[in-house]
């Protein structure tokens, strides 16, 4: 197949992933051509123009899809049902939010050159220590990976070492994200309290309101999703990926053939948290706000539903699930807002009852049936 030229060796058998990434590349190129290049070269020919709000919406979906991949890695492959993964997403988002706040400079309502508006409002006289460094983008980029990674490391180290598994672990992750939500709600945290961080103006000197910046951020989200997908696929296809599945299926056996199970769980958990952090960091400039609501336990549960509906343990299933459910959410909350939660519940019940392997499982079943038919024709 010619298409294999474009993909690394370990993806050659991953048909779903190849289709997904090809579509992603196609959409991104289309957006760049029709929303960026054509308006630039031929200002009057704007009929093919996709509205910018839609580009941003799509970019938002792509970030959520990356988050879904992160959860699929730990849940679908390693069997750790983390119901607090949105916390890592929100932490990455907050890191980005802090950078964007520092970019505002003296253009805030109070015109303070250093302090963000909410600090002036709270009569704070100087910047808290943990805001230092966030004026630099490089430092922020590091923190986007480091903060969620460190939290995952500490949490994972304590829980995996004590061999907490299953539903107990899920409850603890819920408690983690809930505790963080309560903490971030407090004004004393110095992170905007209830209102969170918002009124962003620039990123790296480019206005967030301009169409071209939005298209660039959209393209970056697409690139991050693609790279996150490829990295995750590499992990899953490696011997480490096989070991992690082995841990999911027979943890004791894995221990007795000499693997230190805690380390493997910890590694995949930290990697996944970093991926979630990146997703959050790209999400924030597109929605223009980050507040403690992102830590809400409900968000993490919804995330698990995306992965379940898409089909866990496949990676591209997580992406499909995130896209389907979020598109449905956008549609329902616009058209029939009171019905959305019912629709989500129904989707979840239907998928657990009839599609244990999600939408992807449905395709696979169909494919197997056609293959079996072919086989029967051959043998008959």
């Amino acid at each position: 197949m010619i298409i294999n030229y474009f993909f690394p060796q370990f993806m050659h058998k991953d048909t779903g992933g190849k289709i997904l990434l090809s579509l992603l590349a196609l959409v991104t190129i289309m957006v760049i051509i029709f929303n960026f290049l054509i308006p630039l070269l031929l200002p009057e020919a704007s009929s093919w123009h996709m509205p910018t709000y839609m580009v941003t919406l799509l970019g938002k979906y792509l970030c959520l899809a990356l988050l879904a991949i992160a959860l699929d890695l730990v849940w679908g492959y390693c069997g750790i049902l983390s119901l607090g993964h949105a916390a890592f997403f929100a932490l990455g988002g907050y890191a980005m939010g802090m950078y964007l706040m520092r970019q505002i400079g003296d253009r805030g309502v109070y015109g303070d050159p250093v302090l963000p508006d909410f600090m002036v409002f709270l009569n704070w006289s100087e910047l808290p220590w943990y805001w230092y460094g966030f004026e630099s983008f490089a430092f922020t980029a590091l923190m986007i990976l480091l903060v969620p990674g460190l939290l995952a490391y500490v949490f994972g180290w304590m829980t995996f070492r004590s061999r907490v598994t299953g539903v107990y672990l899920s409850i603890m992750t819920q408690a983690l994200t809930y505790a963080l939500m309560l903490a971030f709600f407090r004004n004393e945290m110095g992170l905007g309290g209830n209102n969170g961080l918002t009124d962003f103006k620039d990123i790296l000197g480019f206005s967030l309101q301009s169409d071209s910046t939005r298209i660039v951020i959209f393209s970056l989200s697409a690139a991050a999703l693609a790279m996150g997908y490829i990295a995750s696929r590499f992990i899953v296809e490696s011997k480490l990926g096989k070991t992690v599945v082995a841990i999911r299926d027979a943890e004791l056996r894995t221990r007795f053939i000499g693997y230190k199970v805690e380390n493997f769980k910890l590694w995949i958990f930290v990697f996944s948290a970093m991926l979630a952090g990146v997703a959050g960091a790209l999400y924030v400039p597109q929605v223009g706000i980050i507040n403690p609501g992102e830590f809400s336990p409900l968000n993490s549960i919804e995330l698990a539903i995306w992965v379940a509906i898409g089909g866990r343990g496949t990676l591209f299933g997580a992406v499909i699930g995130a896209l389907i459910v979020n598109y449905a959410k956008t549609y329902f909350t616009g058209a029939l807002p009171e019905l959305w939660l019912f629709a989500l519940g129904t989707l979840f019940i239907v998928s657990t009852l009839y599609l244990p392997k999600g939408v992807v499982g449905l395709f696979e079943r169909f494919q197997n049936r056609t293959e079996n038919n072919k086989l029967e024709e051959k043998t008959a």
Partner: protein
Amino acid sequence: MNSFSQMQDKVRDVLRRDRTFNHTIVEENIFLQGTHSVHHNTLDASHGPVLYLEDVSVSFDGFQALNKLSLYIDDGELRCIIGPNGAGKTTMMDVITGKTRPDTGLVYFGQTMDLTQMAEHDIAIAGIGRKFQKPTIFPEHSVWENLELAMKTDKGVWHTLFTVLTSEQKDRIEEVMLIIGLQELCYARADLLSHGQKQWLEIGMLLMQDPRVLLVDEPVAGMTHQEMDRTAELLTSLAGKHSVVVVEHDMDFVRSIASQVTVLHEGSVLAEGTMDEVQNNQKVIEVYLGE
């Protein structure tokens, strides 16, 4: 005074043994006994026994699973362990592999490795492999992948992420696949195998680990007679290079492989000897047949 009486105890302890071991010999720094721990990572089986359990007791909520159990397994030996249900056979394996920690007693691998201080994966890497009673294989992986995962190699996280199979490793996998007779099912998912094939796969995984000691819990449960014969052949061929400890209920099978049989009863050794000796032992007959 206290340490003097301790030394006396130790000397008495050594004198009552029929064999001497490094860790039981009175050391010069006996006064520091409480603070130093024996944990070296090289196997020293130069004095005969490769696996050494003494006075091991384990109780669960008042139930005495092991009661001052003492057992020595020699290097290259094939030993069968029999005993009625609840005799403590599986608990003994749990203690050796680090799954259960003994309340009291010594568990040594070779002369120097204190197994009670080691984690499960360290014990596995040190060279003790275990087959469970119920075949536990990785159901979603193929036969090949099951063997690959068990293979003796660096099992650290980063190494595992970037490793690629070398041709020697592939040869080794194929060799083991031939031994266990699953070469035609190389790419089949392991949960599609029959019960007997799963047992064989698990034995194959043990072989991939290349352990010094193989602990095999009920290897022929659910096997046909032909499969049983092949298993017996395999296990006897392994003895010599490895020490093999087999826990089994099937007496015919035990008779077909074992030179030495140990009978466990209520958590301690009831009798030891050849199959004939054991079968004619009055105590054993009482336990098995009732009075």
